[in-house]
């Protein structure tokens, strides 16, 4: 069979065709398969201690990414719904809400996350659960504004050009219009796209913040309770050497073999991170193209 035809046929119901012809699904599959491949590869070439450290770092990073997605979607939803149904009826609440949002979006995300480390260092118990949840909360807070803007933008679109006012004027409850008609029936692809982007950004920012803190000024302040993330692994001296070794490849392309076996710890941590980011980018792009989401 010609591959080109396989990629182009839309009306065939076969799952494989569907996955191949849709960029978002293609990359989702590639992401999962790639991840499995890394795990198997690393299980073979890394020593047991390093492998379990790497695996747990990936798990912890993704777990935080997922929690951050769930929490930030909830925050954004609460903000948008509150604005629409509650705050707009009260001047002071309204002003307070906008000032809060103003602050949230005027502090760069990485700064919010670094500030979030303060209580972890100085005030919290070393319980991994509390620390993980707190970190997810901080991450989510830094993305809450994006979700809020997405949702209120969707509401505005259906208000200006759409069914929102038509339904409202027929006496249909606003909460139903927003939750069911605007969000569930009309915004799912937008929110899924947002979730993919937030997941990737969370992974990226978390890794960077952990890297900064681990490599930075006060190594004595490492978080004793929290499992390491990809960022912590990248900041270790071994990983650093592994990554420095990439340069050898420019002089001797065959050095690639060494990179993928002896220098595996740093390389695989770095690659897992970059691979996640690229996959998320492509999945999001595919989704935007396929569902024709507005830029």
């Amino acid at each position, binding site marked *: 069979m010609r591959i080109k035809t396989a990629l182009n046929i839309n009306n065939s119901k076969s799952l494989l065709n569907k996955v191949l012809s849709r960029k978002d699904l293609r990359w989702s599959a590639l992401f999962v398969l790639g991840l499995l491949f890394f795990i198997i590869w690393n299980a073979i070439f890394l020593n047991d201690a390093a492998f379990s450290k790497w695996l747990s770092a990936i798990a912890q990073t993704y777990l935080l990414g997922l929690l951050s997605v769930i929490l930030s979607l909830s925050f954004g939803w609460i903000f948008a719904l509150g604005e629409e149904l509650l705050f707009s009826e009260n001047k002071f609440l309204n002003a307070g809400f906008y000032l809060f949002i103003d602050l949230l979006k005027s502090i*760069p995300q990485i*700064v919010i996350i670094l500030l979030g480390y303060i209580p972890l260092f100085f005030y919290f118990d070393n319980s991994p659960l509390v620390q993980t949840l707190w970190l997810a909360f901080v991450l989510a807070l830094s993305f809450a504004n994006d979700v809020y803007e997405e949702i209120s933008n969707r509401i505005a679109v259906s208000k200006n050009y759409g069914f929102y006012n038509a339904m409202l004027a027929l006496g249909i409850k606003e909460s139903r219009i927003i939750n069911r008609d605007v969000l569930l029936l009309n915004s799912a692809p937008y929110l899924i796209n947002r979730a993919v982007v937030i997941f990737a950004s969370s992974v990226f920012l978390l890794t*960077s913040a952990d890297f900064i803190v681990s490599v930075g*000024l006060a190594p004595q302040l490492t978080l004793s309770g929290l499992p390491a993330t990809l960022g912590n692994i990248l900041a270790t001296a071994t990983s650093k050497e592994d990554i420095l070794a990439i340069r050898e490849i420019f002089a001797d392309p065959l050095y690639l073999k060494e990179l993928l076996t002896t220098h595996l710890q740093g390389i695989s941590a*770095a690659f897992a991170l970059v691979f996640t980011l690229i996959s998320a980018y492509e999945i999001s792009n595919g989704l935007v193209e396929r569902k024709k989401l507005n830029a």
Partner: protein
Amino acid sequence: MNSARNKIKNHFVGIVFYGVVFVALIFLAGTQKEGTDFKNVRELLGITQTDIGNELDMAVLEDAIKIFYPRKTATSILSALKKYKEKVLTSRETKSGNAESSLNAKLIKTILLQAAAFFAYFLFIAFALFYLSESFAILKFKSRNRGKYSVLEKTIELFDKEFERKIYHKKFPYAKTLKVSIYGVAKALAVLILFSPAYLIGYVFKFDYGNVTFLAYVFLVIFTNGLLATSVNKFYRLLETEKSKGYVKTAKIKGVDFDYKNSANVTLLRIFSPRKYFGSHVLNQIYRNAHRQYLSAFKEIVRFQITGMIIVELSLNIQNGFFYGMLKSLMNKQYDVLLFVLMLIFFAVKFADVIADYFFAKENAKYEN
């Protein structure tokens, strides 16, 4: 125009409000240098004459507490003790930080100078990023509209050629395969760099510890962390959205120049010109419409740019930078200094917002009657 003025007015309301809040907090943090939470612990240490740096002393004290207090109280005292110990040790190790613990005139001046330098870099990079992202996005748009396609599609075409070759016994297309492979590898490398965090690229190219020149810094901020990739994509999406709009169809039926292959209006020189103009080509309209929206969309990118700058500065340990001071004050719990830096960051972002809104309003005013 009115809504733009309102937006800018709102920014100033935010600036004034938070300016006051920050200043108040800074004073508050300055006066309450030492919290009361360690009072009990310090008293305890005073009574028992324990040296907190001495492991043996501490072990004895812990045992004593466990004996003399009920279990719950003992646990809480012990954890307070542990934190106090960490705090004391930290401040012992970072003596320099401890010495300039409060916000004085000299420190303010240093921070302001750093902030000014940061802002100058920030503006330079923002303009460069804006220009580069538009140019590359148009380049991509042009090549997609000429019928050029992705590496994947090119590879598939090769396989299809192979299929044809088998049927018709033709020669294998070596030259084409080589071309596609080189293109594929180059693209993969480019994608890897564009999506790598700055510190990975910094390591690979050995930009580290004072080794970061201005150019390297700018390169890292723009070309890594996915910043350029996402901003090019953003503008490319706007172009694509515009392309499917009704006025483009009207232009098409009017017989306006739609040729992306040979038209003298869409040369490389015109695409990379700072003042982009594509004559009577339909791209001119598509570009102007997209450009108008990109100005406001760019605000989001600018926030991410600041994040990128912070990551480059902190992860590569660029000493004496603006954010390096922030991280130091954070680690040393100099909350007044931290708040001061935060206030400046807040102002910087707000100022960037104002600039973006100003350009947006200015661009839009062109098309108002």
